[in-house]
């Protein structure tokens, strides 16, 4: 009996220790936020270029003739003084050079300065006129663009990209950052390395060059041409039998739909070239894939 009581006591003490220590182990994190806001008058032909680091960039179109911005710089650290010092190291600057308005956030280090220990993040809320051309460079973070009708140029690494209802000439170059798009229209050019691509209800001319990606394309609306070149990728296209297909597949597992009947039939060769023209007046989907999978539904 005494032994059982001791065992119960042991379990009780252990559980208590775990919970107590868990409660004690929580560290209060100091969160410091600095907010900047302002606006710049926009005239036709003026471009906006954003150079961000550790930035979460939300950009959307608005009806006014101005570029408005609200920037939150956030530093998190257990030590308030450290967070304050690190917050000062994160700089935000803007200025016009010719017809381009530049905005940049970056960590600035003077000689002898230690690198920041706080978790630093900058959240951008930008509103631009619908037709304002936009360039964004970002490293580590997120980019969201909505409702624009202009030229968009994005170069990013380790940053997820979301484009919603964007029209115009759109160029995206991403490494290690997933790209998703809804209701995109125009000339869309995507170059991705280790970045998954998901496009829904895209229209216009779509050019994709991808390496090591999961590519998922759904429900095209008014597609003019799709040119997809991929390497070591998994491609899934869900469109139905509405297009012509020109496939050049090398070492690719191809799961073809029942409606796709072409001549000559597959002979399980490592290289397959397929020209499927059931609807000759329909836009063409051209896919060149080297190593990977392809699924068309």
């Amino acid at each position: 009996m005494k032994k059982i009581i001791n065992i119960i006591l042991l379990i009780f003490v252990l559980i208590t220790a775990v919970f107590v220590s868990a409660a004690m182990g929580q560290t209060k994190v100091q969160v410091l936020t600095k907010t900047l806001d302002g606006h710049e008058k926009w005239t036709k032909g003026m471009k906006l270029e954003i150079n961000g680091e550790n930035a979460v960039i939300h950009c959307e179109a608005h009806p006014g003739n101005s570029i408005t911005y609200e920037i939150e710089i956030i530093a998190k650290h257990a030590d308030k003084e450290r967070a304050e010092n690190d917050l000062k190291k994160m700089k935000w600057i803007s200025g016009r050079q010719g017809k381009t308005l530049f905005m940049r956030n970056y960590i600035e280090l003077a000689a002898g300065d230690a690198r920041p220990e706080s978790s630093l993040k900058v959240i951008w809320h930008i509103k631009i006129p619908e037709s304002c051309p936009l360039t964004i460079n970002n490293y580590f973070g997120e980019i969201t663009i909505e409702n624009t009708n202009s030229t968009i140029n994005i170069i990013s690494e380790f940053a997820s990209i979301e484009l919603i209802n964007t029209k115009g000439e759109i160029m995206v170059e991403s490494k290690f950052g997933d790209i998703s798009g809804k209701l995109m229209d125009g000339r869309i050019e995507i170059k991705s390395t280790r970045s998954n691509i998901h496009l829904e209800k895209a229209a216009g001319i779509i050019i994709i060059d991808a390496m090591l990606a999961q590519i998922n394309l759904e429900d095209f609306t008014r597609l003019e041409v799709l040119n997809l070149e991929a390497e070591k990728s998994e491609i899934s296209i869900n469109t139905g039998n509405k297009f012509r297909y020109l496939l050049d597949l090398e070492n690719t597992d191809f799961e073809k739909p029942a409606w796709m009947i072409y001549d000559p039939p597959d002979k399980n060769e490592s290289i397959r070239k397929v020209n499927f023209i059931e609807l000759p007046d329909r836009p063409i989907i051209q896919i060149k894939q080297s190593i990977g999978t392809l699924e068309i539904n």
Partner: protein
Amino acid sequence: MNLSTPIVLLTVAAFFISMAGKAQTDSLGYAAEYHHDSLVEYLTPIEYAFMFHEETKWLLKSNLLINSDYGSVSNLKLSLEKKIVKGFSLNAVLFNYTGFNLGINPFGTDDYGIELSLESRWYYKHQKYIRKNKPTANLSGSYLALGAGYRKAFTSWTSATEHTNLEFIPLFAKWGIQRRFLKRGFVDVGLMAGWNKSLSGDSWSTLFFNTYVDAGLAFTRDRQKLDFDKLCPVLRCHAADRFLLKTNLVNIINLAYVRESMIGSIAPNISAEFKIGTSPFSINTKLGSKFQYSRMLNHDFNTYAMSPQLTIEGRYYYSLHRRMLMGKSGNGLSANYISLGATYRGQYYTHNSDGNNYREGSSFVGLKVGTGIQRLISEHLYLDLNIGFGYGIAYNYTGNPRIYSNKGKAIFDLGFGIGYRF
């Protein structure tokens, strides 16, 4: 009672283990930036800046190393280097040199000439690079070279109106280190020794040995676009340098043995630059002196020369804000500038011949305006290319007893500094 000891121990252990697990807080990690899987990823940022990622089959080089600080010497050199087989290249050089007399040199000589040469280079670390999985075909590396050429030289002694036309066949061997830098730059430094066979008479044939520094623009066809974000640690696009202490290493040591004469010079210099607050203005001061000794081995004649220089100038970095906005620089001292300042420079000679001393010298004090490009590279390097014009008074003395004279004088400066930052 037997159980109580392990219970206490277990409790303490569990407490510490759980504390260690829970005490972690958010922090911003700075991992190494290059962990990708292409060729570039295995290179350090400085190797990337040296263009190790590009297979360079040929390189057209234009030497911009024009130095008129002390010797009033201007060089223009065009080279075409072409890789022939693994580790070997051919380098063709068209070289024009001019020793302008700007009036400071009391000898009043003008020298100019042209040289065409061809050398074969062996990049002898080729195999080592292969073992380390580094790219080997980028014409960047340490090399040994053998070459030959043709030189036509013209000298005028303006004080005596004596002119000399000379033709040479130079045969030479070199050891050097060449690096491409970014897309359009190169540096080539080393030692050179050889024999100038004169076609104008055996008395002009001579052995030579000297150091050399070539730097300037390089052109080739590159496959990849440079990613400036990868170069951030090299180009210091986050740095806000407020104070620079720097020394120009170009031509800091020159050794030459030419026509039975030994010439050696050392040009120590130090510059300090202070940024004024966070503004684009700075104060730059430069103090230096070139000490030169030459000795004719077949005559009792030697010369000591000293060329001190002091410059104090204010600089306005007009492109700093633009570079900051474009992500190419922090709020430091790495941008294009214009400058206005005062300069003093002198040249003092003591000639010893058969136990007799003869002294002469000149100095210049004046104002100077200029423009230039300064870039801070990595932790300890900098580059400063500048051009300037000035006006002031030149003082000359010569002869025994001394004859002093002074007159208004304009100066023209071209400077190419590659150096070390402390």
